[in-house]
């Protein structure tokens, strides 16, 4: 019998999008499962499930993580940012400039990659407020988009940076 079914239970405390949460979870619950199934934060999508596509990207203590590969127990004592919390990280407008720019440039089509793409882009802009095209390509290299062809994403990230630097 698989140990998932009778997995050990852990108690963890963490923050998601600023909100403090404590809960008991099975040891082998993945972070994406915790977010989507337990917390009903369905903005984070799951694509490949094997750490390649970047759909499920979230930030843990400001670091980019594929939540499909991360065990939920590992966020104990940490802070997670998902797409649902992105707008609140920017105080000057209702939406994060990345969200506005992605809309303006149609940096998405089906939108399935978009939460991961936006979260990765935020991490990029945190580190590098004025990225070149090359910096963007480098940083987003692990976020797959099957729809857009990417150029609109590069334009959107640059425009967001510009807005934030203005």
């Amino acid at each position, binding site marked *: 019998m698989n140990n998932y079914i009778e997995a050990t239970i852990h108690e963890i405390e963490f923050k998601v999008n600023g909100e403090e949460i404590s809960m008991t979870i099975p040891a082998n619950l993945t972070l994406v499962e915790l977010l989507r199934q337990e917390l009903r934060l369905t903005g984070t999508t799951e694509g490949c499930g094997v750490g390649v596509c970047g759909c499920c990207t979230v930030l843990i203590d400001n670091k980019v993580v594929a939540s499909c590969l991360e065990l939920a127990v590992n966020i104990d004592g940490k802070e997670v940012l998902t797409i649902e919390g992105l707008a609140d990280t920017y105080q000057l407008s209702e939406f994060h400039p990345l969200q506005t720019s992605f809309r*303006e440039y149609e940096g998405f089509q089906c939108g399935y990659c978009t939460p991961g793409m936006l979260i990765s882009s935020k991490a990029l802009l945190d580190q590098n407020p004025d990225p070149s095209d090359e910096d963007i390509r480098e940083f*987003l290299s692990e*976020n797959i988009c099957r729809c857009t062809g990417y150029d609109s994403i590069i334009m959107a990230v640059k425009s967001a940076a510009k807005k934030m630097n203005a």
Partner: protein
Amino acid sequence: MSTQIPIIEPDRKVEKTSLIGKHVLRLDGESKVTGAVEYTDDLPFEGYYAEVIRSNVPHGEIVSISTEAAESIPGVIAVVTGEDLENADWISPYVGPAFRDQPVLAIGKVRYVGEPVAAVIAERPDIAAVASTEVVVKCKKLRSVTDVVKARKEDAPLLHESGDSAAIFEDLAMVHHSEEPNVAYAYELNVGDLEKGFEEADVVFEKNYATPMVQHVHLEPFVTIASYNAAKNSFKIVTGNQTPHFVRREVARIFGIPSSKVEVEVPQMGGAFGSKTYVRIEPLVAALSRAVKAPVKLRQTSSESFDTSVRDGTQTRVKTGVTHDGVIIAQEVEVIWDSGAYADISPRKVKKAGYTAPGAYDIPNVRVISKSTYTNKPPGVAYRGFGVAQTAWAVESHIDDVAREIGMDPVELRIRNITQDGGTYNGVGIGIHGAPQCLQAVVDEVDWFGTKLEQPSKKHIKKGRGIAVTLKTTITPSTSEAIVLLDADGSVNVITGGTEIGQGIITTLAQITADGLGIGIEYVNVNTPNTNSAPFNTSTTSSRSTFHLGNAILGAVDELKEQLVEFASEDLEIEKSDIIVEDGFVKTSVGNYSISEVVASHFVGGGGTLIGKGYFSTKEGRENRYESAFWMTGATYAEVSVDTRTGKYSIDKWVNSADCGKAIDPVRCEGQILGAAVQALGHTMSEEMVFESGQQVNKSLLDYKVPAIGDVPKESKIIIVESGDPNGPHGAKGVGESNTVTVPPAIGNAIRDACGARVRELPITPDKVLRGIEEASE
């Protein structure tokens, strides 16, 4: 009925704002950048979860399936096998849009590795997953065939005994299995006198080209929820599917119930590209729900997408007769499709892609043989480009080969032979299609005839350039209908069967509706379909939605306007001829009224809804436009650098043009053009389902590489051509596929130009380039 309309000053300011040709923010944008959008898997669900057990042999007789161990696991509700379905009196368990050759779960036989054989239903997905490993399937191996040449030999193992048309689609009424072993359907086209054409030609050239099976890689995998209602003997199905009305029809048929008892709802989809067409996992999930009389959800993994639907591989022979001065007078194309174990929509693919196998050229003597072949592999389905991506790889590579044979510039040869707007194609009139303009646009953009590429100083790096052009049909005949509900406050709800797969149809339809009524787009709500209310729509495929649904909406808008005129005429007691609806107003000889004023004052009781209906159908016939309701055309220019020591190459620059007819929203059109091109970049450079002993060995995105952001050419230009389709809404037509077709041959041609290597089998990998360089120097 005669409530008095409040009189407003006749000179009230009326502003004309057209939404056509303008960029508007996508209506689903906010939900997509905030994570609020709901895909099927995001919806609240209470019920059971399924997991599929798949065949691990390519061809075999099912001897036994033992389910006891799985069933004894706590939390397992049931295990369902193909035999269970075969013995059930509530289902006729075979499906398919062309032939009913595919069992919902394998019955008696398995025909490919990955074929669904049984399903576990459990209280939780993890329990279903664990239990599925406890189901033991015993098969007696049969001889299998995974190659289209061997599959057609007399002694080949037969995958299917017989096949008659499913008789659903008019254009597929005549399909039947061929006499030739394992040929699901053979299409033939003869124009002029081929042999005479070859005799008259100065040069006759013949070569073979091939493409492998690839997969769509929609990032949202297959997810379906089915809920059987035992009291009503009805189903509700929520699913990511591009053809909800087909799902309804097929599910109703297999359970022997009326269509009205099958409700199919399609939320937003995370990409599809043709994969989520006709029926995929819907009949299975519905059957599971029927078996346990409870809601069942199946969410497949992305690896399982490779087991579910793929793009047919092809082997194509092209023989061309040409004069010294570059007139192509005869062409024979034989394309053999590796359609996998079940035909799905392949008969239409071999027919439609067969029709345009000669490319975008007006050739007087043509013969096309196009054969869909069963092999022990996953089923080939629709994929962006619908077969033309494969045939054009052959023909557009071949045109360059022919040009070299006669010492002519390959673009010159294209220009001399391309079918003209309003010209002939395959011997009949073709109408407006835009292919010459698309070709000319890229030629002009790069000044093809005026410039020569400068070679880099490093001797082992060679630069080259190539062009390809395409002409593609859209699904014909087909039907789209639309209902536009106009509320008393002047806002509207648009109801169609069109699905949002990322292409932006919600917003495009909103633009057409708002523009038609002259109201702001913020007053328009476009619904994702639910077949209980949405009128019929053949499919959201073949880039047909803007054209067909757009036309249906224009019809619905006209009907609304007629009613507004009638109301105003009745209520104001003036002649209908003194009233027009324009720019969001009902303009009359006695004053201008807002639309809402007319609706609100006509009805009583706190509201009222005006219903506008629009129907749009196209016919099929081999005359003029009837072969295709409109034509998709486009061209690609690619510039490459090849490292002749390693065979590695980069695409330094590309230009992609496509004819939109009229761009309803230029930004969205550009998104379609580039998105199509980049998907094809993957088909060109890396994508290939690799099979060993009938088993795919790279069934994961870890091994199956699709383009990442760094793979996209840095220098890029997109050109929107607007030829104005005479039958399109505002002249618009579909634009989602042309550049999926043109990118691979443009790059192949550029590599040939750079270093002499002619790679005739996709993908173009460095080792093939190296081999090509060797061959060229021999």
